[in-house]
């Protein structure tokens, strides 16, 4: 199956509810066929609005959305043929699991024996065989969620939207459901647009992630790239943990830049700074900085340990470094020979490649 690069296309989409504030600004987004794409962002960032526009429950104020090459703004939701999983499952409480799954097939006038086969297949896909006669109220949260997933897939839609489907589940169940949804996606190759505010969920499940903030896509890339190479300080802050230094670029040459802090100077990787004198925020992942590095690193500074927090597999160390009292280090518990004690002065080193000079906050 030749997959289309722009199976779903948001073309210059704006959305405003009150005519004063734009909740989605100039959205430009292509989703390839068979892709699992996640819209990630804090609440109020416009990600759910985008999903609702795609489902047809909201209309774009400006611009157009294309599904498989067709403009869909004027098509009502029930004719779009898009499966959807809602935040609170939205199972019909007065129907059995079977009837819930049969609903989309009945409105499509699919003959009963064929419908039964599809329902069986969908239920076995979410390993809920034998639950067909139950009412949704008799199922646990995780089971209800699986029924909702099965219902959104039972009529073989090409596109499935999921609106924070795991938000109401507890942590362990959420994790196992993440894998389950991922596996279902891989086995049937349906295109999934997934909305969440949980970054670990987004990182584990998606092919690509669109980070939303303030109505705009801040970065659209694969999970590893998003984590390793954030393009601006919002993404760096929002995804994973992050140490920052605010300063001014004093020199830029040879793919490196010098950033002048209040009382020191560090080397960084210029991502969004162009020239001398620009304000910048340097972002550094905690695991990229080492204590007493054995190899040569082009940043090496002394800091004082302010706090030590034991986390089982690792220890978090808070250090006052170069005027930043919130500098966090993660020390794996295998390196027990280190002298980590409150009040000790230690050497911290990191490579300038990992310190990304981004836009100022």
């Amino acid at each position: 199956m030749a997959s289309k690069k722009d199976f779903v296309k948001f073309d210059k989409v704006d959305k405003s509810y009150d005519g004063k504030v734009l909740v989605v600004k100039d959205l430009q987004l292509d989703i390839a066929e068979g892709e699992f794409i996640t819209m990630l962002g804090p609440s109020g960032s416009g990600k759910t609005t985008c999903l609702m526009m795609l489902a047809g429950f909201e209309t774009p104020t400006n611009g157009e959305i294309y599904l498989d090459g067709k403009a869909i703004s004027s098509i009502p939701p029930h004719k779009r043929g898009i499966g959807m999983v809602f935040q609170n499952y939205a199972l019909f409480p007065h129907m059995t699991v079977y009837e819930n799954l049969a609903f989309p097939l009945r409105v499509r006038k699919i003959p009963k024996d064929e419908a039964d086969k599809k329902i069986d297949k969908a239920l076995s896909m979410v390993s809920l065989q034998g639950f067909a006669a139950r009412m949704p109220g008799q199922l646990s949260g995780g089971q209800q969620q699986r029924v909702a997933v099965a219902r959104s897939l039972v009529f073989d839609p090409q596109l499935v939207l999921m609106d924070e489907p795991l938000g109401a589940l507890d942590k362990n169940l959420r994790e196992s459901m993440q894998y389950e949804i991922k596996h279902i996606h891989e086995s049937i190759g349906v295109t999934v647009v997934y909305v969440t505010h949980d970054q670990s969920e987004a990182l584990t499940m998606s092919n690509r992630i669109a980070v939303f903030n303030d109505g705009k896509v801040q970065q659209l890339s694969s999970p590893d790239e998003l984590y390793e190479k954030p393009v601006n300080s919002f993404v760096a802050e929002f995804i994973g943990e992050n140490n920052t230094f605010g300063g001014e670029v004093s020199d830029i040459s040879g793919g490196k830049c010098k950033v002048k802090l209040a009382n020191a100077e560090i080397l960084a990787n210029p991502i969004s700074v162009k020239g001398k004198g620009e304000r910048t925020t340097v972002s550094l992942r905690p695991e990229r900085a080492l204590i007493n590095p054995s190899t040569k690193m082009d940043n090496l500074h002394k800091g004082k340990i302010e706090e030590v927090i034991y986390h089982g597999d690792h220890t978090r160390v808070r250090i006052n470094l170069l005027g930043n009292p919130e500098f966090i280090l993660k020390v794996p518990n295998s390196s027990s020979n280190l002298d980590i004690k409150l009040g000790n002065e230690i050497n911290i080193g990191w490579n300038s490649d990992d310190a990304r000079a981004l836009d100022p906050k």
Partner: protein
Amino acid sequence: MSSETNQILTTDGIPLEVSLKKAERKNKIKAFLLVAPLLFFLIITYVFPIGDMLFRSVDDKMVTQMLPKTFKAMENWDGQELPEEEVFAAFHEDFIKLVEDKREGKLSTQLNYTKNGFKSIIKKLRRKSKSFEEGNYKEQIMSVHKRWADVEYWRAIKRRAPEFTSQKYLKGIDMYKNQEGKIVSVSEDRRIHRVLWLRTLEIAFFVTVFCFLMAYPIAHLLATLPMKYSNLLMICVLLPFWTSLLVRTASWMILLQQQGIVNDFFVGIGLVADDNRPEMMYNKTGSYVAMTQILLPFMVLPLYSVMKTISPSLMRAGKSLGGTPFVAFWKVYFPLTIPGIGAGCLLVFILAIGYYITPALVGGASGTLISNQIAFHMKSTLDWSFASAMGLMLLSGVLVIYWLYNKIVGIDNIKLG
């Protein structure tokens, strides 16, 4: 296995059940003492008087006790021809005693319920009986008035012999026990109650239907509008609720009368001619309009409370799965509102079936209900036993509807708020 091993003991060796009962007894007593004042209040002010009124509807001891000797003498009378002298003598004896106690008026009222025409002949008998001679009472009583010589009137007296009677109930459905003791309908031109029962059911049914048709969209709006608009709408729904029933009915009178605002408006827009204004009051239309408006909140509120709990994402799910807006409504939304519909309809129907003030004021002759008839007998004819008989019939009707509802929809499916 012996029973000893079955029994679970507490750590102190007391059987668990005994220990549990002991622990709970104190709480049970406390709970009972808390509700006891209300319980006694209800028994004294509700159960007892209503029970008494209901007993009145079958109680017929009054006449039995007023004419004890007469009824004893009548035991052997077959009711074909005029009774023997022995019955007349016993009746005379009972009657003289009643006159002494000044209770003959009550007797005349009671006998008049059974057969019209007793009032005047008993008055006459009282006057004449003062100059009666001893012996041959049959001749003397028969000479007082020709009705005393009519066997029909003596049969009427005999019908009052039993201590309990169903005649009030039969009368409530325009039937009576004839001379042969058979239950038959009264003549066509005197059937007033059946019409009233049917009209009561009809009006209650249509008022329920109208209320449902109007309340459903209102309740849906209330449940789905943003807070600031829905609050305003809710006040509009509740405002009439907080206004006196009499005031609301009176304002309908102002609106609906022939020279009223609605008619003026119709004439103003040229819908009807000025000299041909429709009568919208003192008939069924008046009852329909006013009762529907007054009972509307009782339909809106249960519907609203149910609709409020239905997540809007269910309708969205229905649509996203391919259902047209109508299918999503009919298959998903509507079934979920059934508990509210049931509660609202039951509430409105039961209230409408016993409605009194509004039909009395705007219903006129063709818009009055059975409860107006009950009130009429309570206040005007003072035939309380008949009034309570009809009251009980109304109550049983409501219970039957309740039972039917429970059979069809299930009473646990009801939701009032």
